[in-house]
């Protein structure tokens, strides 16, 4: 397919790998964090890391929407699902994220009406088809997904669908990046699809405040290799700039219509808890006052209790790039995609699941 096949070209990939070898400074260790879980998945699906020299290390960031949901919010979702007459709708991976007393899938097995949807619009369709039931959409995701939820809420309001509401868990990407920038050696492959919405401009602080390069990247293997090369060239030339490798999709200013819709429907929470990262100021979205009548947290009683992560789980260290997934005590033994303990093992975009599914149980490569 056009726009896909040319970015999976093996010959082009090998050419870029050669250029990366030429661009890397021997003996200098470069840590590059791919912020987005979609990148993590592509890297292991296509074996991109096998094409990189040992001293170019890819670490995996907090950009998997499922992985950063804290257990307390899962518990809140289950509590809503167990309310009489409620149909709770959510994306597929969210159903398998463990709360303190099981998952939404297990709540469904116990009798709650939990349904998987592909888009928020599907949830609204379920609401229209079941006017005698309360239909709640469990919204998760970064700025990529938030516009879709916002448009659906606008539709619900315009069409007067009174039995529809949203349990909002949308988060924004810049605050956790700021939290991670204390790590001295980190450079970033920027989140391509988030930037489709917010543009590349919000990443300028990485260069201006921290003097580090960042390259907004597409998700195909050639995209990621080219982005790594662009970062290495910036380092070699002493530059710190926001560069846009994903120009075929990402306008530097983002999608202004999407930003307008989000500004109308959402408001920033003062703080929001991230799995493994703790509370981060202004990093979560709630429904704005104008849409508060569609806010499930106001419509239903939610426990709102903070639940500590299981002690065995090291998702927090994985999300911060401190350890590799295979260095976690329970990776591949007590924690597997079939029976995840931590969120990073749930979604295929989670670093642990990507390592597990593509057989990365250790790393041995030759230093350039």
């Amino acid at each position, binding site marked *: 397919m056009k726009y896909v096949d040319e970015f999976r070209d093996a010959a082009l990939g090998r050419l870029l790998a050669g250029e990366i070898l030429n661009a890397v400074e021997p003996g200098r260790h470069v840590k590059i964090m791919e912020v987005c879980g979609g990148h993590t998945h592509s890297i292991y699906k296509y074996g991109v890391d096998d094409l990189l020299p040992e001293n170019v290390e890819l670490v995996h960031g907090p950009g998997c929407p499922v992985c950063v949901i804290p257990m307390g919010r899962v518990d809140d979702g289950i509590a809503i699902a167990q309310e009489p007459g409620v149909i709770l709708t959510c994306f597929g991976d969210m159903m398998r994220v463990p709360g303190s007393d099981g998952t939404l899938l297990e709540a469904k097995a116990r009798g709650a009406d939990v349904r998987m949807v592909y888009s928020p619009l599907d949830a609204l369709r379920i609401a229209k088809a079941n006017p005698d039931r309360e239909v709640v959409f469990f919204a998760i995701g970064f700025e990529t997904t938030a516009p879709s939820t916002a448009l659906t809420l606008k539709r619900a309001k315009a069409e007067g669908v009174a039995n529809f509401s949203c349990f909002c868990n949308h988060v924004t990407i810049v605050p956790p990046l700021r939290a991670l920038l204390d790590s001295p050696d980190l450079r970033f492959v920027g989140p391509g699809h988030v930037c489709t919405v917010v543009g590349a401009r919000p990443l300028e602080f990485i260069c201006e405040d921290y003097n580090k390069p960042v390259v907004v990247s597409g998700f195909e293997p050639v995209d990621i290799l080219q982005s790594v090369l662009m970062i290495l060239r910036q380092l070699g030339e002493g530059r710190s700039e926001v560069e846009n490798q994903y120009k075929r*999709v990402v306008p530097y200013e983002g999608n202004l219509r999407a930003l307008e819709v989000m500004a109308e429907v959402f408001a920033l929470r003062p703080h929001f808890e991230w799995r493994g990262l703790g509370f981060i100021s202004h990093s979560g979205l709630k429904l704005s006052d104008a849409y508060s009548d569609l806010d499930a947290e106001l419509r239903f009683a939610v426990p709102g209790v903070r639940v500590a992560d299981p002690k065995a789980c090291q998702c927090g260290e994985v999300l911060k790039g401190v350890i590799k997934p295979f260095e976690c005590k329970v990776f591949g033994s007590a924690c597997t995609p079939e029976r995840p303990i931590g969120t990073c093992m749930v979604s295929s975009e989670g670093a642990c699941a990507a390592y597990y599914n593509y057989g990365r149980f250790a790393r041995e490569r030759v230093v350039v």
Partner: protein
Amino acid sequence: MNCEDPHHCVTCGDDGIPERVVAIDEPRGLALCEREDGAHESVEIMLVAPVAVGDTILVHAGTALARLTGAEAVR
């Protein structure tokens, strides 16, 4: 390419899927689109309108986020 795929959930993964516009329902702000695998779906196009039949758009969670442009497609 859906959440039932045991290895990959396009919605949870912040994925954008290139899809070709097959038909447009302007009053409802929707377009019928075709994916790489030949499957069809109804897509919200308000954020990228106007689009024309034959355009390629990037779709996430049933919403088009961007139009793919040929000039920048291959660098």
